[in-house]
């Protein structure tokens, strides 16, 4: 089998096996073995104390813009100029204003539905392709993998001229897949389902011992049974990671959504919120901040739900590339 890490050490294989079977190191795990290089002596500060300082600095840097958003969201005046880092009030005016004055509810539902469906579908399409790339040897396999990566490096927005022309025609022929529809945007996003994510997945699939599927095949299992029955349950971490990455990517996507969704109620959060501050930058800032906080809820929730898979999934997939 392929070890998780191409190291000269035999000990690596065991560590990779553990991850391959789906219980990789989680975001919240502490390192299991003590890391003590050389002697373990020294004062508390040189051992642990300075680490707290680094951690606190990092936390402060990570959090201060978020605290600023929270402060702005609860700022009763709702303007940028009156917002400070430390909250000055606790008014829910911005939230009620957001819900009453804008189509935020529609934007929210549109975004969550589109991101969830597109994330799940692209995870599935990617897993199918990764299975073929990991388990079969066929002509054009390596160029195919390289092509997947390169095609995504092409600057997307010019292709939007084409996409616009295409969807003008699609809107005439099939209004249910046209502009301002969920399904139209979802199938458009499916164009990017194969790409870096397929590489991540393929790398993880490679860490699953091939003996497993071969012995199943000897027992008469078909390739579909191997895929759904053996492989998929073992690759949950990378499925979680790719699903999450697609979800975050979709919910944040602006360029395509902005030309695709023009009717008020069909907009996604990215398009709708951008419209709030595009013109009235200072005055709408509180409402915008409230919208940003609410937008973060589905992503953060998904992030915590999947956190135990994330670190393991990201790195194991990265190893083989």
């Amino acid at each position, binding site marked *: 089998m*392929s070890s998780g890490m*191409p*190291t*000269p*050490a035999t000990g*690596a294989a065991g560590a990779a096996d553990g991850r391959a079977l789906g219980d990789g*190191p989680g*975001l*919240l795990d502490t*390192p299991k073995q003590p*890391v*003590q*290089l*050389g002697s373990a002596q020294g004062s508390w500060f040189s051992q642990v104390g300075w*680490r707290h300082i*680094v*951690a606190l600095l990092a936390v402060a840097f*990570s*959090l201060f*813009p*978020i605290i600023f958003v929270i402060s702005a969201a609860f700022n009763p005046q709702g303007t940028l100029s009156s917002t*400070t880092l430390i909250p000055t009030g606790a008014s829910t005016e911005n939230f009620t204003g957001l819900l009453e004055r804008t189509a935020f509810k529609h934007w929210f539902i549109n975004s969550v539905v589109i991101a969830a469906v597109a994330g799940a579908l692209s995870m599935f*399409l*990617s897993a199918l*392709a990764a299975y*073929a790339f990991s388990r079969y*040897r*066929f002509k054009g396999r390596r160029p195919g993998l*390289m092509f997947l990566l390169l*095609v995504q*490096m*092409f*600057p997307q*927005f*010019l*292709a939007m*001229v*084409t996409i616009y022309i*295409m969807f003008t025609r699609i809107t005439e022929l*099939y209004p249910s897949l046209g502009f301002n529809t969920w399904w139209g945007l979802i199938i*458009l996003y499916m*164009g990017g389902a194969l790409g870096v994510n*397929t590489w991540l997945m393929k790398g993880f699939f*490679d860490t699953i011992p091939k003996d497993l599927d071969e012995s199943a*095949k000897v027992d*008469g299992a078909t*390739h579909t049974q191997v895929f759904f029955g053996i492989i998929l349950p073992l690759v949950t971490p990378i499925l979680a990671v790719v699903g999450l990455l697609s979800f975050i990517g979709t*919910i944040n996507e602006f360029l395509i959504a902005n030309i695709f969704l023009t009717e008020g109620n069909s907009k996604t959060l*990215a398009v709708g*919120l*951008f419209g709030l501050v595009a013109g009235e930058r200072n005055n709408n800032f509180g409402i*915008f*901040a409230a919208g940003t906080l609410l937008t973060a809820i589905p992503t953060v929730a998904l*992030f915590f739900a999947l*956190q135990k898979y994330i*670190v*393991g999934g990201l*790195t*194991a997939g990265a*190893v083989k590339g």
Partner: protein
Amino acid sequence: MSTATREATGPAGQPTRPSGKGGWGLSGSSPLALAAKVVLLGMVAAITVWMAMPLIATQSWVLLALLLLSALAIFVVYLQPRYIPPKYLVPGVIFLLLFQVFPVLFTVSTAFTNFGDGHRGSKEEAITAIESSSVKRVKDSATYSLSIATKGDPATGDLVFLLTDPKSKEALIGDATGIKPLEGAEVSSLGRVTAAEGYTILNAGQASTRSKDISNLSVPTDTGAIRAQGISRAYEGVKARAYDKACDCIKDTTTGATWKADGDRGSFVNDKGEALSQGWRVNVGAGNFTRVFQDKTLQTHFLSMLAWNFFFALAVVFGTFAVGLAIALALHHPRLKGLKIYRILIVLPYAMPAFAMMLVWRDMFNQDFGLINQLTGASTNWFGNPWLAKLAVIIIQFWLGYPYMFLVTTGALQSIPTDLTEAAGVDGASKFFSFRTITLPLLFVATAPLLISSFAFNFNNFNAIGFTTEGGPFPPESPQVGGTDLLISYTYRLAFGAGGAQYGFAAAMSLLIFLIVAIISIISFRRTAALEEIN
């Protein structure tokens, strides 16, 4: 086993199908798999029929043929038992071809044309546009009663003119292609069309919101064009400029000026070299590419932009990686209390909506009421100075990106076996030495593909600029290129900017950007593959 050695084993990965289960069709599957296959292929057939109907109705035979061929290909792939990989690749590849490969190929093909504002359609379309926009009202122009209607939504649908000839009271319908009699119309006693089958007539309020579309609509006739005058009357004007086939030129009937067709430029040009604004689309060969390399001002901008573009991408990738790794190392200690909560708080930026946080950061850098100036007590004009603006966009992108690198390196550190560094320690190596010679190379191997794709992403990170500085600040001496413009944001303005769209030129720029990124990525991948072999 490395990828390279497995590649060499060739078709060993092919499944050995139990004998007697070959052949075409649906034999040789378990009942459940068989049922699933029938249902899924049935869905493909149903979708094909659903998609075919509008194509038949609109007589789009080429698209119909493509659709049927694709459907046939799908059936062949899933009914034949021999080749397994296509069965798993086809679903993703269909979407990839439709929405990535096809648009990219179309973009590449426009890179060799002058496609853009004023050069969108054919020569005939350009002539029609020139002639009908030159229509002037003359003394004895015929007038019509006008109703404005649409087949679609009154706010957005394409407009048509419903006209009645004041003398004959005959109802006519006119759009950008011409005029023809209107069947089944109700005409009021005043002579206006009040209803027409299949059309919605706009009321005064709806019409007034679309006054621009109405005044732009010009219905060509034999001698001129019909244009609206207000929303209830239209006149038939005479065209002041007309195309003359004999000289292949446009002649102005009142001034006598002529513009000759120039097939290389796709424009009508007079003897002073001035072109009419409506031209047509022609092939310009490599003209767009030579323009990038030959144009003096563009050349200096291109190189300085390229330099900043590289600096931005590298600074962001290595900055986020170095800091992410440093924090991961600092937190990689078994006796550190509060580790879980630290990690969650540090990665929180990654979970926030990036586009919104970029806008928030933009406002935090605001000179007058931004948080940064508020906290430091300064009144720095962050986005007014090109260097400070560059620093600001790097800081913003750094904040968004370092939690990801922290996550990745944390995971990689946990998967590096500790016995390696312990053994080095026993052998007397210093901590730093064992980190540099053991941990760091392993980390690089583990994260190289992510670093390369992160570089490619940031090289073309349009959002990082578009949501913050929009390319600015723009120096007064060269207002086209801003201090923080990446190649991509500059190209974006070329393609969609206020100066009129230049898709052909923008497509050529995109192709160049793509080549740069692709070549760097391929070289880096080759090098990391080599690194992997050594380890």
